[in-house]
């Protein structure tokens, strides 16, 4: 067999040729979505040059932060055939609890880690219920989404909480800009990098992908499937909490009604970014880029003066086009590889 020969020779050469191929495959996995994003931006810019104004691009990016973070976190449950529908509720609850703590005198920079921990805990609760009650995560998080938001609404008595120390650097810096760039956007990039590394280069990431790829085989291989599931759901909760914290810093208030429907947009962003619901695969950078694509589309509608009511329609169209394009690209690639 010609193949066995290559296996032999590969060892002799100091740099296996397949390494380069793998690297290029890694990069190429995201090229599709990145190309879509760039084309979109350029395309809109051609007709509405004002769109390319750096300030506009940065604020468009800022708008993608919450969904982008949720999508990046969502990659973990999705890659192991789970889903987290509670990120929107988690987001709102984090915001409200943070605002309440700060209103009641907890220093903002102390409140922030507390609410992040809480958000991670909420994610873990999703994972624990899914695991030990043996209920699909879809159903568990459908319920906890309502629970979380319900608690947020009750906590805030249905109103926004404005009484926060606005002069704190938490609001000034985290809610403002750093080096001329919205801080939230920097956090998104940083979180994206960290989660990418966790997903692709650590044992935990590999375990998540292994379970998603073949749950039976993973269990028989001795993987702690339950623990991995809980950890993956915790990741998703933590990412949603980070989004809630950033939102609190930006809006200078805790709003229990914010973030409704974000979970579906986040899932859409993850799917656009190349994380199939079938599990086993996923891309954190892709998910972030997916969120950016959706934000660009929403912003572009404003530039073209298309009524805001068309946002949902446009989002739906983008999801279909992006996913179809990605699938076509993949087919083309396997044919020519």
């Amino acid at each position, binding site marked *: *067999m*010609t*193949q*066995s020969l*290559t*296996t032999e020779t590969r*060892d002799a050469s100091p740099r*296996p040729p*397949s*390494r380069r*191929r*793998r690297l290029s495959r890694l990069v190429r996995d995201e090229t599709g979505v990145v190309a879509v994003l760039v084309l979109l931006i350029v395309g809109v810019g051609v007709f509405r040059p004002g769109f390319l104004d750096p300030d506009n691009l940065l604020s468009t990016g800022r708008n993608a932060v919450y969904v982008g973070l949720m999508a990046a976190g969502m990659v973990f449950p999705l890659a192991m055939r789970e889903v987290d529908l509670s990120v929107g509720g988690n987001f709102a609850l984090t915001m409200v609890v943070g605002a309440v703590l700060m209103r009641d005198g907890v220093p903002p920079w102390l409140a922030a880690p507390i609410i992040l921990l809480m958000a991670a805990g909420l994610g873990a609760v999703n994972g624990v219920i899914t695991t030990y009650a043996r209920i699909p995560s879809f159903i568990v998080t459908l319920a906890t989404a309502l629970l979380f938001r319900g608690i947020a609404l009750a906590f805030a008595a249905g109103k926004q909480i404005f009484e926060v120390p606005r002069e704190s650097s938490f609001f000034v810096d985290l809610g403002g800009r750093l080096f001329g760039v919205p801080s939230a956007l920097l956090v998104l990039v940083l979180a994206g990098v960290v989660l990418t590394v966790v997903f*692709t*280069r*650590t*044992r*935990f*990431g*590999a*375990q998540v*992908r*292994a379970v998603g*790829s*073949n749950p*039976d*085989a*993973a*269990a*028989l*291989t*001795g*993987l*702690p499937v339950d623990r991995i599931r809980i950890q993956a759901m915790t990741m998703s909760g933590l990412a949603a909490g980070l989004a809630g914290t950033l939102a609190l810093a930006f809006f200078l208030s805790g709003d229990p009604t914010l973030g409704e429907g974000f979970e579906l947009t986040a899932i859409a962003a993850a799917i656009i970014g190349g994380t199939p619901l079938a599990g*086993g*695969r996923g891309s954190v950078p892709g998910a972030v880029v997916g969120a950016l694509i959706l934000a660009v589309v929403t912003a572009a509608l404003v530039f073209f003066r298309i009524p805001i009511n068309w946002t949902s329609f446009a989002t739906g169209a983008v999801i279909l086009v992006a996913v179809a394009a990605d699938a076509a690209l993949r087919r083309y690639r396997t044919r020519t*590889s």
Partner: protein
Amino acid sequence: MLHATGLVKRYGGVTALDGADLELRGGEIHALVGENGAGKSTLVKILSGALGPDGGEIALNGTPTRFTGPRDAAARGIAMVAQELSLFPDLSVAENLFVTALPRRFGLLSPAEMERRAAPVLAGLGLDDVPVHAPVAGLNLADRQLLEVCRALLATPRVLMLDEPTSALPPAAVDRLETVLRQVAARGIAVLYISHMLQEVRRMADRVSVLRDGRPALRGERAGGLSLDDLVRAMLGDGAPAPAPAGATADPVAGDPERTAHDGAVPDAAALTLSHVTVPGAVTDMSLSVAAGEIVGVAGLEGAGHRAVLDVVCGLRRPASGRVTLPGGGTPRSVRDAVRQGVAFVPGDRKRFGLMLDQTVWENATAVRWLGAARGSWWQHRRSLRARAQANLRRMRFHGDIDGRTGELSGGNQQKVVFAKWLDTDPSVIVLDDPTRGVDVGARGEMHDIVRDLAATGRVVLLASTDLAELTELCHRVVVFQRGEATGELRGAELTEQRLSTAVNGS
């Protein structure tokens, strides 16, 4: 009837077929053999329309043909049973059998009609006691494999192609399949079948073709004139040293001095013990102790309970009463617990239990040690993980790209990956359930050598196999099960295929 010439098929840079020929005639059983990765599955996929060739011609009854897809081929009387099973686990047995053409009455499914048509075919293959309306997921691998054959037969084909139909079958089922195939051939149907069991091939086939590296090495020779040596030489090429094919030597046990010596020794340090283990519906009050360095086989008919022994040792099932003690002194409470205590489990049902087909080969080959037992760094050091995978796979004559997707490997090479991933953990107890399913003779020999080496260094090995030759070649002793009880034990010179077969089937 079906005549292919000069078929070429490339997967990216890999040439799977390079001018393969095959001529199938009605009324004959034609066997196709070759090493793992020789291109056998690729060839039948092309002949059944599942793959398009990159070159070459197919003629059906003398007229050149191109199949547009499996449906087209099926419509023209070609049926295929694929190597990797393709049943729908959540559909019932009956629904699976008629999945492409469900019998209907007044537009509704007709379970009665399904059952009526399926019954004789099922009975012919010994599946008469399988619940027709129960989901397929509950069946064992052997029954599922036979079910696929039934499905192909029910399509009343003119050409029937079976890709390793016997790899998971116990001897009795192989015999029944043989009978059925003979009847089918007697009706003038052309039968092609792929197998790595060369003895079986010589017995069953009228003609034999051999593929080597995608090229024909033997073209439809009469099986009667071929010796095992001829076959092995054709498979491996002239220069290759011929490994002893399965069961070629009369009785390898008797000739092995090391083994005889071992048999004389009293197994003082029992490394693995099962004491009074009862698993409801499987075994009752079973006791067994295996010394370090021993290879012990368990054999029995389907449902005799021998597999339950494997299950309790690797933590798949917990005994209702009794105790399993591993070499470290612990009890396997779950699969994960067993893995952490050094138990390795090599299953034959690789698609379901063994592999992540969409991940790379090296990721699979390192999955137990790095992901399951969580040994090594939490950081993915790809270079060293790859190197380990490569080293383990090389020992088994693995042919393939370790950076490629595991699903793209040939069936036998996939099985080698399953074996390799367990080798990687340096286990103290090795549980093998049909470990060489679908592996060619050469690699089978290598895998057997590895198992012997493991035992020689003080590991405990438990083996179940549908291949009696594997049990007699490898084991120091074989415990025979009937109806949930150990009814006998064969060792040393008594351990022959014939005796084993008699013991298993009951006196």
